[in-house]
């Protein structure tokens, strides 16, 4: 019995990307006479975009599920990636080190944001607005406004290798899975997601916990930054509190992932959702939807999903109500008879 439901859960999880692929494949064949995934390059692209989406969604989820929406996450991504990249380049090190440095710097910016949070104790959104203003300036000043440009830099080749990107995404997914299920942090995270107040009263150090979440989010989001820059070769050092767009764009993956993950596990769900959405977007771009139109379609579906999620308990509720009314009618009849 239990095994069967597990099998169902697995099928449910696999169904999302597979069905999406099937639908897009069909549409592409009908309208453009193309396959969604035809070459090794397609696979590579899908993997990379899935990775970026999934990592960013993980990073978002750490804080967001505990009620902290960190609006400075995008600036941490920018700062960590650019500074890590510049350092690796200055030291003449390879792409692997770039990743390591970026993660370390992301971690540091995350910790600093977290420390600012627990010491200032202003609402997370307010903190995010303020910190984003500050963090955006850091890479700008350090890079002299030039941002990061990896084009033609020796040793960065590894970053664009498919096997390397797959490895990064897989290792990261496994790490997050272990972290969330088998460690103190995971335990605490679930508890704080349930109720910060109770968790605190039970002796969980929510201050340390918050810093840990911020630090992890910072590190993760920089992995996304590196995956991104490895492909586009450059990351501009933008100012004006506009850096967070790249992060919020992955909200859909996080929420869809949370839904899929109810059957299995949140970390699996997010990866699954990221894959699903990536295939969907890739399919749309194959059908020559321009980027803004692609976004519009995605967001409309996102709204649809949010509406579904907010109302999916309604059917069950309706059934329960109906049953209750029937029970009441029966009882009334009994009483009238008595």
């Amino acid at each position, binding site marked *: 019995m239990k095994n069967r439901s597990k099998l169902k859960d697995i099928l449910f999880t696999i169904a999302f990307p597979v069905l999406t692929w099937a639908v897009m494949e069909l549409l592409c064949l009908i309208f453009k006479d193309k396959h969604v995934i035809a*070459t090794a390059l397609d696979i590579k692209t899908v993997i990379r975009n899935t990775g970026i989406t999934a990592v960013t969604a993980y990073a978002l989820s750490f804080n967001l599920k505990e009620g902290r929406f960190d609006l400075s996450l995008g600036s941490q991504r920018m700062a960590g990636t650019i500074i890590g990249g510049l350092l690796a380049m200055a030291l003449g090190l390879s792409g692997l080190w770039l990743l390591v440095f970026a993660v370390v710097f992301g971690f540091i910016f995350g910790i600093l944001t977290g420390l600012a949070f627990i010491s200032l104790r202003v609402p997370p959104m307010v903190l995010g607005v303020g910190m984003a203003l500050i963090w955006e300036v850091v890479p700008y000043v350090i890079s002299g406004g030039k941002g990061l*440009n990896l084009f033609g830099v020796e040793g960065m080749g590894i970053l664009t290798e498919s096997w390397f990107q797959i490895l990064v995404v897989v290792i990261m997914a496994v790490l997050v899975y272990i972290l969330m299920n088998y460690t103190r942090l995971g335990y605490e995270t679930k508890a704080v997601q349930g109720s910060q107040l109770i968790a605190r009263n039970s002796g969980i150090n929510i201050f340390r916990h918050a810093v840990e979440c911020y630090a992890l989010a910072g590190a993760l989001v920089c992995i996304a930054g590196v995956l991104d820059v*490895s492909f586009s070769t450059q990351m501009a050092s933008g100012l*004006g509190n506009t850096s967070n767009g790249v992060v919020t764009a992955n909200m859909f993956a996080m929420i869809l992932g949370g839904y899929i993950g109810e059957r299995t596990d949140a970390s699996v769900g997010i990866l699954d959702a990221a894959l699903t959405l990536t295939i969907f977007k*890739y399919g749309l771009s194959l059908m020559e939807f*321009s980027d803004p139109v692609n976004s519009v379609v995605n967001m409309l579906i996102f709204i649809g999903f949010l509406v579904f999620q907010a109302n999916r308990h309604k059917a069950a509720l309706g059934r329960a109500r109906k049953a209750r009314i029937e029970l009441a009618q029966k009882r009334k009849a009994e009483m009238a008879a008595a």
Partner: protein
Amino acid sequence: MKKIIALLLAVVMVFGLAACGGTSADNGSGTESGTESGTATGLDLSVHHKVGVATVHEGEAWEIAKTYLETVVGPTFNMEFIYSEVLHDANGLIAFMEQCYAAGCDGIVNLVTSNDAIAQGAHKAEEWGMWFTTQNSAWVEEVSTLEHNIGQCGASPESVGEAYKMAFKQILSDGQPHSVVLFEGAAVGGDKGQGAASHFYSAVGVLEAFQETYGLTYDKPIADLVNQQDPGEVNTGNPDVHIYLYPGRNPGDAVTALLPVLQTGNYDCFAAVFSYAAFTNAIADVEQSTGKDIKVIATGQIEQQTKTGFESKDPTGDTVLNGAILNDLSLACAINCIELMHAYSGDVASMKDNGKTVLLGVRSYPILGADVYAKMEKINTAPELYILTSEDLIALAQPGVTWQDLEAKLAEVADVNTLLSSKGL
């Protein structure tokens, strides 16, 4: 108590930072107003001027231009520059100009390229009596008669178009059918003063090169093709020649959207009317996947990324960058500042053609090989290696030098070989 300390700390921090950034606040007398028009007073380099520079650029090339302004133009003309954050539109320009006005600037170098930004900016400048000069390839007539609008310079549309046309004709000259993906940047509306004129004419140049080489029959005039807002394939009338146009300002978005297009294997040329760097990995991936070489021609500056492009090899063994159309930002900035100096000297008339502003064309340099670039890259690396040196600047800023003289000077430095030899390279 803690609160008070925190407050004090904050104040100290704010002013401390302010002090760090604000070393130049108290030196120089600072002209309080910019209304010095009137009779020509001659070139007076003892007067300190504050000039606001409204930029749309960021990155290495812009930093090089900034260095030029700081180390050569500023000291030569006794100018102090205030730089904006990266601006995008008229709103940003106006806000920045307001700040400049309040900070005591008497001149604006505007790099925001859209007619309405230029018009709004020029009007504001007129209202406040600040001198206003612009970098844009399209002449904005509606504000050309304003007194304080003293001129425009920019990549001359013909030259940039010509450069692209020439570069492509050379590639297409092998008699084989070629196809191109063209990243048009802000070309849409460039001829009507909405996008960037240089992008528009670059795209036109490419389309003309193809048309003339293969005798293509586009189903619309070239200008209309370039002005289409949606990306897509152009109807070329030749089944072997494909042209895909992608308008958009964000290279990141463009890469995602163009990757599947390139991957069809139909295209063996790629042209970008501005930075191409974001596309390098995508193109390399496609080359690897299809085994076909893709020729890349892009607008560039004299900077590291262009150098690397000419020197690196792509997966098929060709150079990554096959041709660069160089626009020199430093030169354009110098021309803007020279125009300002004329205005400060009361010599506005010689910068205008019958009271109307003039568009001075800064020529683009088409560079079609690593060897040429190797020489060109030395430009802008030392004070005497800028296209316009300190002496040139002073000579051109003398009252009596007219816009025709400036135009002549620009023509003089327009040819790559002449330029290189004049610098001893």
